[in-house]
């Protein structure tokens, strides 16, 4: 196989789509072929540039779409007859299903009771805004011997919290949102806002946690943005070193090395030396070598 015909193989290698045997053969070839190594670097640079151009939908648009979908779902039919959400029962009584109609009526009364109670009891902390309607799920139903129905329900309530980052309850909720297990858009929004309070240790800890644990590389990049002003902070530096050594996303590692380069210190020498032995990306290797050079440190471990 000549080098020109290896372009597709190098491309597949960059995408992690070669078998382990094919990848090993290519690596062996790369060791002795400068032309193919150059092609590999070109492809990696191209890939990183393209991935950096990934569009991000504005959070307001995501929020608007969710609102519209919720409204449209209220008008839509369910995939099965059983409805779990009370609001849907109100909007979509199932024709010909008398028992469900009765249940809907019973639940409606329950909901009015709950909602009325909530509205009359008022907010339960000072930043709480206008409560939104309750959501009730029936967990199970009992038929009492007397004929009475006993509905065991679980209630959740959406609420609007108003305030600023200076308000501790708002900040606490944002720190929770930064760990949201489902929605990366919520985590991204929370971290973006929290950047304005990154002088607080708990906020910096949230950035470190996001950098080390978030499954989404875009969120980890956001966490790095948050840590940018704190490259002198020992905890932040340790987190940057760990990301440099263990993160599987090239952009995250590239940004971590940039931040460490901004303030080269002896405490990262070991991590950078270890990185030089294992990093596959030429740019990151080059930057690491330059930082070591700036500190008069050896590029190898002896």
């Amino acid at each position, binding site marked *: 196989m000549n080098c020109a015909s290896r372009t597709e193989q190098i491309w597949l290698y960059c995408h992690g789509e070669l078998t382990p045997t094919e990848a090993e053969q290519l690596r062996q070839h790369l060791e002795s072929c400068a032309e193919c190594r150059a092609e590999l670097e070109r492809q990696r640079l191209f890939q990183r540039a393209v991935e950096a151009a990934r569009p991000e939908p504005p959070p307001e648009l995501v929020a608007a779409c969710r609102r519209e979908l919720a409204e*449209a779902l209220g008008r839509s039919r369910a995939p099965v007859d059983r409805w779990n959400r009370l609001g849907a029962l109100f909007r979509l009584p199932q024709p010909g299903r008398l028992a469900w109609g009765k249940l809907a009526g019973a639940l409606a009364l329950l909901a009015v009771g709950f909602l009325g109670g909530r509205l009359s009891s008022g907010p339960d902390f000072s930043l709480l805004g206008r409560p939104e309607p309750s959501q009730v799920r029936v967990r199970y139903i009992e038929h009492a011997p007397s004929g009475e129905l006993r509905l065991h329900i679980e209630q959740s309530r959406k609420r609007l919290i108003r305030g600023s980052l200076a308000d501790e309850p708002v900040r606490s909720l944002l720190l929770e949102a930064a760990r949201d297990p489902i929605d990366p858009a919520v985590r991204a929004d929370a971290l973006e806002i929290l950047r304005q309070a990154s002088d607080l240790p708990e906020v910096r800890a949230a950035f470190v946690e996001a950098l080390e644990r978030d499954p989404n590389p875009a969120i980890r990049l956001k966490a790095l943005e948050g840590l940018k002003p704190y490259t002198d902070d020992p905890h932040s530096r340790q987190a940057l070193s760990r990301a440099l050594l263990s993160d599987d996303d090239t952009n995250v590692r590239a940004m971590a090395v940039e931040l460490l380069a901004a303030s080269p210190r002896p405490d990262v020498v070991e991590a950078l030396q270890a990185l030089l032995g294992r990093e596959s990306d030429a740019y990151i290797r080059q930057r690491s070598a330059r930082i070591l050079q700036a500190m008069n440190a050896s590029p190898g471990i002896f």
Partner: protein
Amino acid sequence: MRAETGVDEASLIRAAQQGDHEAFERLVRAHDADVLRLAMSFVGSPEDARDIYQEAFLRVWRNLRHFRFDSSFQSWLYRIVANLCLDMLRQRKTRRQAPAVTGNGQAGPELLDTVPEVRAETDPQRALFSREVQQRIRSALDGLTSRERLVFELRHFHGMRLKQIGEVLGASEEAAKNCLFRATQKMRLALGDFL
């Protein structure tokens, strides 16, 4: 390196198949930013992307009971979104409206004549993330066919493997690979020595 979330998506799907709105909402929230990204990038206008978002998730809700876990939920969802995007582009073409994807269908230097030439800067990181490069990449994407663009974006913006791209397209992994390779070559040609 990491599992996407600690939540078992299959359990959410099964609950949603039983009519559980909360489970469905959690599924939507897990995927909707990606759906919107794909739609916006494809059809251009945020308003059209909103329509596609809504129609896609309504179709998912209506047809979820037929989902049999033969493919991943994400592949199934993306297939719906991709079909809606392609339908919208076809309708635009039929109505002879100006498409949001404004490419001339060809990759090459003429596509980029209006973009001022900016050579790579001395700091490659800075050059890589510069606005000029990113604009140029978006222009070059316009030069791909709809199918090539879809495949390219699924790989680079959504991190899909070739096998999963094949599932979205309803094609073989080999067909997905060939399409992606063609798209990559066109993109590299269009970007020239910019990178």
